[in-house]
Structure formats: C-alpha cells, structure tokens
C-alpha cells in the first residue's frame, strides 16, 4: 500500500519533470515526442534534448544516492552516515575537478569520480569500524560523523579553490559544489546509468550479509557471513552508486540521509526491503525537488542540490522529531 504510494509519487515526479518548466509541455506532446518525434516542433525538441536527459540524470542520481545512503548506514551501523555529509560525493567531485583543472583532462575526467569516491568511502568505512573485525573495535558514531564532516568540508573547500581559481562560469561552481541537473544533456548519461545499475545489483547482493552484520561481527560470522566480502561488496557498490550520481548531478547532500530513514518507516526491518523502497523513493524525492526548483521563480531556476538539501533537511527534521531516544527510525 505505502509502496504503491511511493511508486505513484515517482510516476507523478516523472510526468511533472517532463511537462513543467520554463516552457510547459502538454502530456500529448510528451508522448508524441517519444513515439513520433518531429524536429520542427519546439516542444518535441525541449523534451528530447533537455527534459529527457534531465529526467535520466535525476533517476540515476536519485537511485545512486538513496541506495548508497542505505548501504552506508547499514555498514557503519550509524544512522547519520550519508554520502553527502561524510564526503564520499565530495571525494568523487574533487577527483573530477582535479582531473579537469589540474591535469587538463576533459571527458575522461568523469571516470576519476570512481577512485575519488572509493578513497573517500574507504576512509569512512575505516573510521566506521569496518576494518577491525573484533567486537568493540572501530569508531564511535560521534567520531565517524566528526571525521566524515571534516573530510567533506576539506574536500568541498578544495573543490571551491580549484574551480574559483579559474573564475569561469558560475554554473561550473554550482554543479561541483551544490549539485545541479541543468545541462544534464552534457553529462555521460548512458555509461553512468550502467554503472549505477551495477551498483544497484551489488547493493541487493550484499543485503543479506548486511542484515547479519547488524548483529555484530562475531554473530554474523557465526551465521556463516563472510564479513570481509560483504564489506568489500558494499564499498564497491557505494563507489559505483555515488560516483555515477556525482558525475551526472554533482555532490547532492541530504538525499542519501533522508531517504533511508523514510524508507525504513515504510519497509520492514531488513536491508533488502529498505533498498527496495529506497529505489523508487530516492528519484521521486529528487524529481520533486528539481521540479520545485524549476517552477518556484521562473525563468530563473534553483539548482537541485539546493532544493534537495532543503527538502531532505525538512524530511529529516520531521523524522527526527518523531524519533524516541534509542531508536533509529
């Protein structure tokens, strides 16, 4: 029932994202643009060249960030873990910006997002106790959060420094600091869609292992879980999910934090069902944020990174208010 609502919200988000904006396009034209494309019709051009790529980018980023949030919270056993706050997105962004501005790469720089995300995620996991298998090893939730936030701030400031040194278009800055879906048509959508898809498969494959890990390493291994393999799979999945999301939409924060909490309120306790709910919920919320940013003050546009952080923040405050002490969601 609730899951049906989430899917309905996603469908509504898709339709609104295609039809609303500086140039509203009626539903019939959207269909025609796909089934019987007419290059002389400006509505068709808007749909095919701008709105469809933008929709795809939102789907890629929404899925990537939401699932990465679920995985990171599960593997660190920390309800505050999230790719935006803990610097994984910024790691991906920093690597790409470094490639473009310091090494002079162009299209190939996108792929640097993955080693960047992997290094930042590995740092988070090490701090989150992933490295030490013994009971009681690893970091306290506070230490993980503090170190992650510091890493994120550092990486964001490095990105600003690199981007602002060039003082080019403000759009570049908006994309790499805030996150944006404008100019989505210029991003490598197909390769990133495939990458994120692989990340989704890995996420679901690691879910039973994460359920066992939630009982502590010793109990998990007693239950036949290969804890090292589960962590390695999660690390790879987070890298692909966040890297893909950042390449198409920039380092969007808060979505990865709010969606897993919301999903757990809808889903049952297991990681599989949380992932299954987060999968449509992530892009639904990101699309809502993007549509809001487009219609709120036309013809100007609020970047999706701003509206998503605002929406995610509001959702998270509402969830946090409902939480009782000692409860995650």
């Amino acid at each position, binding site marked *: 029932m609730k899951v049906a609502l989430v899917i309905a919200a996603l469908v509504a988000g898709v339709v609104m994202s295609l039809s609303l904006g500086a140039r509203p396009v009626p539903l019939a034209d959207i269909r025609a643009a796909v089934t019987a494309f007419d290059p002389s019709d400006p509505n068709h051009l808007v749909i095919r060249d701008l709105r469809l790529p933008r929709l795809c980018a939102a789907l890629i980023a929404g899925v990537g960030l939401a699932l990465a949030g679920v995985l990171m919270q599960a593997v660190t*056993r920390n309800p505050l873990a999230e790719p935006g706050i803990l610097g994984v997105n910024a790691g991906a962004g920093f690597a790409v910006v470094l490639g473009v501005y310091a090494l002079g790469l162009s299209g190939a720089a996108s792929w640097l997002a993955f080693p960047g995300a992997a290094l930042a995620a590995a740092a988070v996991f090490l701090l989150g106790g992933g490295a030490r298998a013994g*009971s009681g090893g690893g970091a306290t939730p506070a230490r993980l959060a503090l170190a992650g936030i510091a890493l994120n701030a550092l990486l964001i400031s490095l990105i600003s420094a690199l981007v602002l040194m060039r003082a080019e278009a403000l759009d570049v800055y908006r994309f790499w600091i805030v996150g944006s879906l404008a100019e989505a048509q210029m991003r490598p959508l197909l390769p990133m869609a495939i990458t994120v898809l692989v990340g989704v498969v890995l996420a679901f*494959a690691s*879910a*039973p292992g994460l*359920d*066992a890990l*939630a*009982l*502590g390493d*010793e*109990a998990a*291994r*007693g*239950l*036949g*879980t*290969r804890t090292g393999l589960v962590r390695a799979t999660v690390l790879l999945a987070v890298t692909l999910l966040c890297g893909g999301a950042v390449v198409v939409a920039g380092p969007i924060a808060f979505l990865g934090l709010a969606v897993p909490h919301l999903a*757990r309120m809808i889903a*049952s*306790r*297991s990681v*599989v069902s949380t992932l299954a709910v987060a999968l449509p919920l992530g892009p639904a919320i990101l699309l809502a944020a993007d549509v809001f940013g487009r219609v709120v003050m036309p013809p100007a546009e609020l970047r999706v990174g701003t509206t998503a952080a605002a929406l995610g923040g509001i959702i998270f405050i509402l969830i946090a208010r409902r939480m009782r002490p*000692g*409860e*995650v*969601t």
Partner: protein
Amino acid sequence: MRLQAKGIDVAYDGRRVIEGLDLTIPDGKVTAIIGPNGCGKSTLLKTLARLIRPTKGQVLLDGQDIHAAHTRDVARKLGLLPQSPLAPEGITVADLIARGRAPWRSLLGRWSPADTAARDAALAATALEDLADRPIAALSGGQRQRAWIAMALAQDTPILLLDEPTTYLDLPHQVDLLRLLGRLNREQGRTVVSVLHDLGLAARFSDHVIVMSGGKVLAEGPPSEVITASTLATAFGLEAVVIPDPIANTPLVVPV
C-alpha cells in the same frame, strides 16, 4: 568426535592468551566450560567457532581443519552465541530469530516453510511466543537473552556453543534454560557447550566439565571428578568446601 582442538595457541596482537591447548568436545553431551574472568573461555569458544584463527595448531570439525571449510558449511554445523551480541535497533524478537536462519537461505534469501518451522520451534522453546512482535529494545535483560538463545536455536545446528547464556537470567530462568539445553541434547542429540559462571549449576546440568585457567585446560571430566576443592583452589584461588548437592548428588561449592 566432531569438534577438536589440537595444540592451539591463540594470541591477540601478539599477546598469547591460549597456549598449547588440546581439547575434544564430547559428541552428544552437555559440556560446561568454567574458569575465572579473563582466563580465555570466550577466546576458546571463538576459536572453536572459527572466528579467530589460532597462531599454532588447528581446530578440526569432522576431521577437517575448520579454516579450510566453507563459512556457510561451518555455520550449518556449528552455532555460536557470542558473549555480547549487538541487536540492530528497532528489530523485533521474531525478526531477530529469523536471522538465525541465514546459513540455510539461498542467495536471494527466499523464506521457506522450514525457516518458519525452525523460527516457531525456537520461539516455543524459549517461551517467547507472546513477545514475538516486541522490539528487542523493549525487553528486559533476561527476555533479551532468551531471544538471542532462540536465534541460536533457529540456526538448527548439531553443535551449539553458548558464551555465558545464563547471564542476566534470574535463577528460575537459568534453571529453565539449562533444562532446555538438556532437552535439546537428549531429544535432538545436539552437542551443547556453554561457558557458565555458576559452578553449582554447571555441575548439576552438565555431563562434562572443562576447567580453564590461564589459557590452559586445568582439568576435564565428569562434574564429580573435576569440581573438587583442589581444582577450585588452583583455578580460581578460591578456598571452598565441596559437598554433594542434596537433590542430584552433584558437587555443590560452598566458599569458606
């Protein structure tokens, strides 16, 4: 004998905790491990359950080095309840018990009728039916302990290793639990090994007692032969008189 340790040394960060230990867990019996705090009981149990790799010697399960076996195969033969497990927040009793089925589930984790049967049997054995839908966080310490034991039962292994399963339980529940372990042993032929601190209960409810001290096995055998004033003095530095229990005639320890 299915589970054996052969000349094992176990160390944490280079500090040896268990030294040259040889041990055979008697099949189809209830075994208690006793010994003072920090003598290496939990370490031994974890080593037997493959959670720690010995620096020397090996643990054999069905004649094979346990570290050469598949993780999942080991988990189908041998269940371990650690001394301090973590409950994921918000999880209910039934959910927790269901997680004990992990080694039996397929890659996609489809839930089967056998899983339901094992979960319900574990709920019934630990008298937790009425609390099945309660979050673990909303249970008393003793109820929580029973939920963990139910999870270990649901794993449905012929060998059960339990680290201090009676901690947090009141005396009637301790006795209930030890009787339950006895029933699992008699009716299903399971091999049960538990670390216990209550020497009287260990003597009363076990077929075999292993006394550890300083990372070594000091004595092992039937309770009446092992729990004596002289072993207690050596293992615990405890001066005590051992008298026969008036009900079961097993040794009863009375500190001096």
